[in-house]
């Protein structure tokens, strides 16, 4: 007879999708920072990273005006002479989607992502979450970032978790879906890999899995990014379905972003080095990317207060 405890359910899932060598992953990602990326390849990497940014504002104090200025920055991050590309998307709360759409207009390459489904906890009835998704899409969102039901996952109720994701896929219509695993609440690499597989089995090609909400203590790290990239690779090799990836939260410096891109290049290859397959969820990363590009151009280290949003004047 099959044991029915959550532990037994998880164990059966690990047996099926494979478990993670934690020490091996940590050792491997520790080496990514040692790659020497200089001059032309650095400039290319910084511009690529800028084109992958989901420029994010997710605060209770967001206003239509703040969202409008965020959209301006998404469209034109800096002096055009520097050649910084437009970012991939802006990421806002559902109530701000219509303001973002007004600021960006209809005819723009910058997409609007919205964190629906009772972000960040997800702890409201499914009906309410689905209504939120539909409202955001109706207001003009191109992409929906949903949170999974971590409670269901940890209780071993995998079909409940998958059914909910499938319901959100339906509610999205044409909008791209990003499934936030909230890795800090999953606790182990094994759980992150297992949850990645459960999500990937019910979403569409080109949809994303995403590390975190950015609202908990631990966010995207090279380690959990690597576990998810390897899950995407294994899923692609088994099924031929390409799933995209978005680390979010805690990526603030250009150096970090380049290291994450090294991980993508060395795990999934060039096919994932574009903003349809890889994104950064970040609010201040773009400033540092622009700052480093300016440094590469002028040769002089730049003060952070020359770039927007760095409010400190010291």
């Amino acid at each position, binding site marked *: 007879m099959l044991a029915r405890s959550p532990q037994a359910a998880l164990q059966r899932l690990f047996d099926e999708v494979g478990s993670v060598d934690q020490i091996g992953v940590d050792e491997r990602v520790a080496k990514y920072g040692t790659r020497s990326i200089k001059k032309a390849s650095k400039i290319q990497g910084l511009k690529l990273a800028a084109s992958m940014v989901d420029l994010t504002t997710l605060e209770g104090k967001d206003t239509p005006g703040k969202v409008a200025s965020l959209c301006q920055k998404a469209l034109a991050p800096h002096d055009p002479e520097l050649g910084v590309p437009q970012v991939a998307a802006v990421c806002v709360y559902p109530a701000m989607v219509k303001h973002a759409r007004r600021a960006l207009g209809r005819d723009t390459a910058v997409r609007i992502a919205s964190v629906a489904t009772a972000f960040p906890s997800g702890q409201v009835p499914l009906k309410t979450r689905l209504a939120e998704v539909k409202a955001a899409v109706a207001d003009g969102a191109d992409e929906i970032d949903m949170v999974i039901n971590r409670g269901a996952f940890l209780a071993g109720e995998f079909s409940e978790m998958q059914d909910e994701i499938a319901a959100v896929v339906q509610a999205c219509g044409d909008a791209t879906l990003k499934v936030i695993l909230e890795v800090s609440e999953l606790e182990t690499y094994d759980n992150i890999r297992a949850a990645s597989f459960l999500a990937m089995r019910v979403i569409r090609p080109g949809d994303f899995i995403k590390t975190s909400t950015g609202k908990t203590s631990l966010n995207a790290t090279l380690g959990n990014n690597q576990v998810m990239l390897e899950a995407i690779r294994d899923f692609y090799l088994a099924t031929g379905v390409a799933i995209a990836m978005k680390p979010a939260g805690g990526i603030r410096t250009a150096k970090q972003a380049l290291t994450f891109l090294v991980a993508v290049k060395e795990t999934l290859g060039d096919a994932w080095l574009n903003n349809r397959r890889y994104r950064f969820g970040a609010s201040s990363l773009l400033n540092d990317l622009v700052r480093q590009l300016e440094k590469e151009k002028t040769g*002089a280290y730049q003060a952070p207060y020359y770039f927007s949003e760095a409010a400190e004047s*010291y």
Partner: protein
Amino acid sequence: MARLPITKTPKVYVGGAFIRSESARVFPITGFAGEFFANIPQCTRKDLRNAVEAAAKAGPGWAKRTAYNRGQILYRLGEMIEARAGEMADAIMLGGATPAAAAREVAATVDRLIYYAGWTDKYEQVLGNVNPVAAPYFNFTVTEPMGIIGVIAPDEAPLLALISLIAPAITSGNTVVALASSTQPYPAILLGEMLATSDLPGGVVNLLTGFRKELISTFATHTHLRAISAVVNAEERKALALGAADSVKRTHLRKAEDKHDWLADSAQSLEAIRETLEFKTTWHPVGA
């Protein structure tokens, strides 16, 4: 029983931590007789960049300290050097100073810190003002620290000159990234150890060792440094002036060719504090 010798690895004090250069390079220094003494970190432009980041992080907190508290901390730094005066004198003697001259330099260094410790809560009274205007307004001029100050110290008086450039800057709430003497860097290594025990928050003073010709251009062009206080030769002055013009920073460049008497009272002044201040003038209606 004979012990194995325990030799010290000199490290520089940056951001409140003792670090090696990110390049892992070192250069040897010798005692006055030419015998090997130690390997000193050969800091790079990246180390300078990291030190500026550390100074920027420490700055707002240091500037917000009360003037009285900054004075206490400068005094405490004087106490820490006083307590290890013998060791510091030995470090200065590596460069050939006589025991008496070395002791004099250490004593003058401590006195210099006490001098500026006294000024922390007084310079504003002298430099700030209520200006006379012909209308019903108050017109105030107040001072503000500039931010991060680059210091390039000379080879002579390797401790006293370094402190004479650093102390007036931190008196008012600036933070400092300093390059110590290339030929006599060891007193600056020791000074780092004293800074670490002086209640001065980590990152307020960051000391680098290395070669001027590798670092001058970055001191000149780094836009986050708001001023440069340095003792430099003609060629270095030109590089600093050109870079400072591009990055709009103030320069206070003393000529290395001139003879400087660092022991003299003239080497400490209110003017030195003023060099790293910006002045802000505001109008306010009377009675409102």
